[in-house]
């Protein structure tokens, strides 16, 4: 999830907290006791994932200039818009693991850069999904003002040979 310019904004944090079903006022109300106890509004621990919004070429966001693989009135028949990688991958890509290390809290007003390095890849056989192809990536989020690390995110994605369904 590379992004050159990931501005952390209070309203985005509020929407993200609502989206994960978390009513903690520390994520939206600077005057709340919870926010004051946390040194002000802070982003939830998984907020770094929202940097996808600031990845200019994110394949899992419809682009008016390109065909989208989701349905209109009917399915298009396209399986994926291509790429996406593991974890938020299109066309058979699923998120297998996610790990965060927090060096400092993510706060409104910060502008981060996210730099992603591809890591290991490996395969495993599974009764549910056939041959599973795992791939790892590590993303460093740094504060553009100081150059300091804010969050390190390690993601493991998996491409399955067939859909892993509910009854399996």
């Amino acid at each position: 999830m590379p992004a050159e310019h990931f501005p952390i904004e209070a309203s985005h944090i509020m929407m993200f907290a609502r989206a994960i079903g978390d009513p903690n006022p520390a994520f939206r109300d600077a005057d709340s006791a919870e926010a004051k106890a946390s040194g002000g509004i802070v982003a939830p621990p998984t907020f770094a994932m929202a940097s996808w919004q600031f990845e200019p070429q994110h394949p899992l966001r419809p682009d008016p200039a390109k065909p989208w693989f989701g349905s209109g009135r009917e399915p298009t028949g396209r399986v994926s818009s291509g790429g996406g990688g593991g974890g938020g991958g299109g066309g058979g890509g699923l998120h297998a693991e996610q790990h965060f290390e927090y060096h400092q809290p993510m706060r409104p007003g910060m502008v981060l850069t996210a730099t992603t390095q591809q890591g290991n890849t490996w395969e495993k056989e599974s009764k549910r999904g056939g041959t599973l192809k795992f791939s790892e990536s590590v993303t460093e989020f740094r504060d553009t003002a100081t150059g300091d690390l804010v969050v390190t995110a390690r993601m493991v994605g998996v491409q399955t040979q067939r859909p892993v369904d509910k009854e399996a």
Partner: protein
Amino acid sequence: MSVKQVDVKVGDSKTLVVFDNLTRTQIVMYAGASGDYNPLHSDELFTTKIAGYPSVFAHGMLSMGATGRVLTDWFGADGLTKYGVRFVNQVWPGDTLTTTATVAAVREEGGQHFADLTVETVNQDGKAVVSGTATARLEG
């Protein structure tokens, strides 16, 4: 906010129902906020007819985010130093998710106190959907 080291013991645990009958709308909210618009999470036609799944399903990160609520409620919104999970089963609309976080160790490192936790979220059938670990900073 942080919790005092003397107030945390190995084996302490907290449990919370983080979603009761998870709605499709909640999954759409997560797509909108996170920027992950993969149709597998919102587009029933695509997901059933093209991708071959029985229905749309939640982003793994929605479950990880909801699971984190137990940790930040307990140790403060800025209290974690590490948090990682494996996504062990999919989460479907209608699922009820219950998270339990348990203290596995309390330790000191460089004059700072930490609690290491295990965290697991299960569905209404008791099947784990998210399983992981976290570390929280404690007040000395």
